[in-house]
């Protein structure tokens, strides 16, 4: 028996050696090529700035990135694409970027952050909300390293000079995608498929807090700007990425009479349900036409490339990074995925272009207080009359809610009229 085992052992060892040696030769090409997990080809904005800036010294730069998910999950995939765009724009080599995927929101995030700092990273990004406190812990320990955290809100209040928050004005792209949904509802009304007061949308939300509320309100206001009779129901999955739950929630919203579905959750669960039921759907993060070729209208997308390029370039140039960074259409940081001509209403493209232009030049504000009411009164009136709403006074002036201007993270957590939150 021993003989057989040792024979097996020998064979296995020999095989390992052969395979190993055979592959060593192309290690440099194959090994490094696999490093950036996301194909750099689908980042259109990178083309203009492919030559590295002559002024800064790029060679000393090391970038660490901590992702909550991996390339299989839309939210993280969008961040990876942004990092790739940055690498191309600044002319870094792949080994100057260390990426850590599927890092949970516990001590793993801290371990990952300090490990990246130990490896000599000058700047470290983390992309999930729950990573923030761990980034702050690491930032206090490594004052010479810059820590940038997406979707967080504590950089300013932490008082740490090397802690930064970034987010995008995704509410702008949600507004635009809402316009697309509203036009689709108008088409149904015109065709006589539904009456005007049946124009109800469903929204699959992740968690009941500001980031999601801000997003669905913007979506709703976009739809309402073209279809005044629209209403919306929101149901939460209490998870960022739970494909089965998102699928279920979408189905129950459709059963409840929703004519259009949108989502703020990271998987393709909802679009899959919509494709089955033949209900138009507006996605998030990634183009959903692959799972819902007949029903996906468009997706509200975030392009993280501009921020990553900005932040790393600041390190190269030795300029400070903004404590709170938030940009929208004007900087190309948000967008909508290509309209699905098979599904959208006629004339959508023109209307979308018009709305985008208005958002870019600032003539249109998403949270224009004249377009919605809260508890049947105007927001400005509520702030002066109701103590519960006084905290929003810092945000509201000049006739609109200044989302993402005080801090980069969304702050609009008002439940406006016309939207119903369904609780189980």
């Amino acid at each position, binding site marked *: 028996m021993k003989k057989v085992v040792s024979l097996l052992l020998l064979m296995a060892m020999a095989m*390992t050696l052969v395979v190993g*040696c055979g*592959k060593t030769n192309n290690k440099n090409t194959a090994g490094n090529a696999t490093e950036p997990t996301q194909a750099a080809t689908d980042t259109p904005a990178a083309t203009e700035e492919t030559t590295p800036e002559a002024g800064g010294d790029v060679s000393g730069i090391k970038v660490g990135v901590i992702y909550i998910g991996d390339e299989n999950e839309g939210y993280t995939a969008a961040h990876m694409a942004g990092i790739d765009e940055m690498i191309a724009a600044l002319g870094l080599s792949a080994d100057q970027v260390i990426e850590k995927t599927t890092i949970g929101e516990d*001590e793993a995030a801290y371990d990952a952050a300090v*490990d990246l700092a130990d490896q000599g990273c000058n700047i470290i990004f983390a992309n999930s909300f729950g990573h923030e406190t761990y980034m702050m812990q690491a930032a206090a320990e490594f004052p010479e390293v810059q820590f940038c955290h997406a979707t967080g809100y504590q950089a300013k209040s932490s008082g740490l000079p090397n802690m930064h928050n970034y987010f995008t004005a995704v509410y702008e792209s949600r507004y635009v995608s809402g316009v697309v949904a509203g036009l689709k509802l108008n088409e149904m009304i015109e065709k006589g498929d539904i009456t005007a007061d049946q124009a109800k949308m469903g929204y699959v939300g992740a968690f009941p*807090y500001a980031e999601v509320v801000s997003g669905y309100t913007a979506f709703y206001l976009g739809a309402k700007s073209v279809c005044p009779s629209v209403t919306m129901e929101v149901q939460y999955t209490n998870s960022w990425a739970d494909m089965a739950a998102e699928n279920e929630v979408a189905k129950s919203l459709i059963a409840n009479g929703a004519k259009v579905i949108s989502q703020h959750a990271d998987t393709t669960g909802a679009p899959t349900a919509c494709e089955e039921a033949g209900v138009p759907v507006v996605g998030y993060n990634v183009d959903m036409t692959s799972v819902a070729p007949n029903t996906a209208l468009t997706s509200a997308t975030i392009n993280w490339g501009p921020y990553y390029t900005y932040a790393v370039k600041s390190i190269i140039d030795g300029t400070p990074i903004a404590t709170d960074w938030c940009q929208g259409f004007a900087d190309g940081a948000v967008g909508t995925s290509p309209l699905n001509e098979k599904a959208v209403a006629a004339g959508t493209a023109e209307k979308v272009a018009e709305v985008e232009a208005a958002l870019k030049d600032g003539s249109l504000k998403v949270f224009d207080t004249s377009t919605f009411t809260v508890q049947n009164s105007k927001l400005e009136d509520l702030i002066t009359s109701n103590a519960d709403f006084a905290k929003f006074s810092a945000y509201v002036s000049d006739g609109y809610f200044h989302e993402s201007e005080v801090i980069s993270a969304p702050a609009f957590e008002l439940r406006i009229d016309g939207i119903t939150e369904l609780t189980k």
Partner: protein
Amino acid sequence: MSKEGANKEVFLRMSKRDSISRTKAWTIRLIAIALSLIVCALVIVFITNDNPIQVYLGIIDGAIGKKRRMWVTIREIMTLLIIAVGLTPAFKMRFWNIGAEGQILMGGAATAAVMIYFGNSMPNWLLLLIIFAASSIAGMLWGVLPAVFKAYYNTNETLFTLMLNYVAMQIVTFCIVFWENPTGSNTVGIINGATRKGWFQEIFGMQYGLNIIVVLIMTVGVYLYMRHSKQGYEIAVVGESQNTAKYAGINVKKVIIRTMMISGGICGLAGSIIVSGASHTISTSTADGRGFTAIIVAWMSKFNPIAMLAVSAFLVFMQQGSIQIASQYGLNENASDIITGVLLFFLIGCEFFINYKVEFRGNKKGVQ
């Protein structure tokens, strides 16, 4: 089947071994470890197209290549070890406690509660003592519940403890609603981040010194308890045969309940080591499957604490190492799960060859 076929001897024959020498057993184990490493290398080479030697250097670098990585590895080893130690008395009694996950979660939740509600009202040493007490009691409750039912109603403890894991998970989910920061985010975040109240502090300049001290005390304590105390002997007797135990005048019910209090209590304490000593937060993934991995550690070590330390160290070493491999080669962390899975497959599989003899039959023996 033809006659010839029926007469043919089986090529492979397995029989139970009466006994096996220590050297032989360890040779088999070492072969299994070597084989598992080779298979892991093959898997990684298949995925990354890289030289396996490079890959193993990467694993070593990831686990102990830097001072901080070494400390993280030690911290994880200690956590796994204390859970395995906690499970030992129950398993020795043949009480299949697969509820360590739940006991850890309850201990962790108790720890978080103490940190949140009493964090600012007392000195840290006192707070830590209360944390140790609270987490042990929470784990104890979670352990004693199935023990009482087993002792009095002879319920199936495997199912009972397993189901309590899910109950514990729901309780933690429920607690998070109260403690979440900010509201609606479903995460608690670092507890007492600014004041560091209830955190394990550096001891002798070692970041995880207190983790080591607590775990080693518990390990030695359980070893002595099992080997050199009357109660430890009673546990062994109950484990061998409850009837013998009854005949010998041992109060079986009492032993079952007492032992599970100890087992659950230590697993609860492990929860405080995770929450106070490492993550400083509570979530449903606080136990993170360690309660199940520890079962394997305890079994494979035959409840020998030194072996437990070695097995935990080996598993954690490979886990931490494969995290490095993942980021080095652009894989995701599933790579770590694959490697751990392969290791466990071989390590558990080799126990079969220790217990059973495999004989290959040639023609020379003749057919009867």
